[in-house]
């Protein structure tokens, strides 16, 4: 992408986890803000209801997608989501949504998931942008704010020759300024709220212009979470997941949270 009229803005969505209602709201929001392109960093499935409803939105609005660990699993009909949980309770719930998502994702959509690239590289206003899922080096690597040193991110930026690295996978947004005007950003996710007691979800807009480099803005997305919760109940998905949607507090998969992030939540 090259700047024709000064600024270029791209919207980056994190994991969707079947939350097509939040995806719809986020796409609408980004379009209203006049972004130039839409990207999704992967994990279309998990957690929410009606997996097939995500895909028409992605294609209709030309959202370019990276393959997440979940997409690799569903696309290739693997046995589990590769999130790597070890807590039996986490695994139990994760498996219920995985089996549900696998059973309810059409062959065509599985093929689409299988075909997705592991990362996308862009050149925007002279900046080398690397979109990936967990980290540039591993799809299911968790990069949390409190467990990722700045010099580690500098090393990733050097090794992967990127000025801006954009990831998701953890579900909680954060960003770090690096040397030489470089940036790292975890955009959070659209699929579920970020364990802060709020029901909204988040995405990020990256704005590039040749004089100011890259500016990152996190954008809250308010969507019809009550409807999502209702559909999850109708689909007999775990009530623990429904609670997370309705309360904004994570009730499962807490084991992978670092102490600092865990303390910020309720459970």
């Amino acid at each position: 992408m090259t700047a024709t009229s000064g600024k270029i803005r791209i919207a980056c969505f994190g994991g969707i986890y079947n939350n097509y209602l939040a995806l719809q709201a986020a796409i609408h929001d980004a379009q209203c803000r006049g972004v130039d392109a839409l990207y999704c960093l992967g994990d279309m499935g998990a957690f929410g209801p009606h997996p097939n409803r995500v895909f028409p939105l992605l294609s209709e609005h030309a959202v370019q997608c990276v393959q997440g660990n979940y997409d690799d699993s569903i696309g290739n009909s693997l046995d589990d989501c590769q999130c790597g949980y070890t807590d039996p309770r986490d695994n139990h719930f994760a498996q219920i949504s995985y089996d549900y998502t696998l059973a309810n994702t059409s062959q065509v959509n599985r093929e689409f998931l299988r075909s997705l690239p592991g990362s996308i590289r862009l050149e925007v206003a002279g900046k080398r942008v690397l979109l990936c899922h967990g980290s540039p080096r591993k799809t299911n690597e968790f990069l949390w704010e409190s467990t990722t040193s700045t010099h580690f991110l500098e090393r990733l930026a050097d090794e992967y020759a990127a000025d801006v690295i954009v990831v998701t996978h953890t579900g909680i947004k954060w960003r770090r300024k690096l040397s030489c005007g470089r940036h790292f950003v975890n955009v959070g996710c659209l699929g579920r709220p970020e364990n802060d007691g709020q029901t909204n979800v988040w995405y990020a807009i990256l704005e590039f212009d040749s004089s100011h480099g890259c500016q990152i803005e996190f954008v809250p997305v308010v969507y019809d979470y009550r409807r999502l919760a209702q559909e999850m109940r109708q689909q007999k998905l775990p009530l623990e997941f429904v609670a997370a949607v309705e309360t904004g507090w994570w009730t499962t998969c807490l084991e992978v949270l670092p102490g600092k992030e865990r303390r910020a939540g309720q459970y």
Partner: protein
Amino acid sequence: MTNASPPTITLSNLDHLWFQVAGTTCNLTCQHCFISCSPKNKSFGFLSLEEVERRLNESIKMGVKEYFFTGGEPFLNPQLTAILQLTLQYGPATVLTNGTVLKEEWLEVLRAAEDASLYTLEIRISIDGFSPETNDPIRGEGTFARAMKGVKTFVDFGFLPIITIARTWPDEEEQEIVNRFVEMLKETGYFRPRLKILPTLQIGAEEERTRGYFESERVTREMLNDFDQTQLICEHSRIVTDRGVHVCPILIELPQALLASSLADSNGGFALSEGACFTCYQYGAICSNPSSSSAIREAKPRA
């Protein structure tokens, strides 16, 4: 089966830097301690604040992601709180402790240090069972109660300690044992306990307790085909002791495991010739925190 030419692992990235911060000095003498730490074992010494600072600065250009502190018992090092305060300016820190030597004033300092930092300070407390009857025969008389008091103290200061348990029970009893343990923790006031179960390593004192490794229990080249090498600590970690930089926290006593005096020079290959390597291979990730579990998994700590 002999293993004349064991496979060699080289360091891909120095993600995890360990510090043998208390050397081999420990107030306890657990039966399974794989480097046989004790109050009198001075074969490795304390690391000073200056030494740790020098290594932290060295670690920047290596791109280290997280720092780990072990011993012996880290809190026996009088400079530990200062060391952790400093480390939290560089990156996330994890301390592996037995939880039995704590002062409230240290925890006040650590609470403030973590609050002021971008990074998490993880506390890992080791115990061996959910009761004195199961824990104390292994770790020593009265250690269960003392460790539980330590857990409570950390919780009172706003930490969520990760309780690590070396597996000393049959697999089929695991779920029940874990459930009882969680109940017990909740009764002591730790309402969202974090647990990590580790395999025991059959070296050091553990060797006398059960048995050593059989000759056949070695990692072979064939075994590494299709194996995710990032599962091995030595693939992405090094440990600093008062002697230099060693390949991994498990084998510090092995002469050939002392690789170099600087971090930058310690990235050479290491032959997986030890029985302990076989456990690493089997169990993977016994040392890392669950927050980096799927990417990097590691082997047994010894706090």
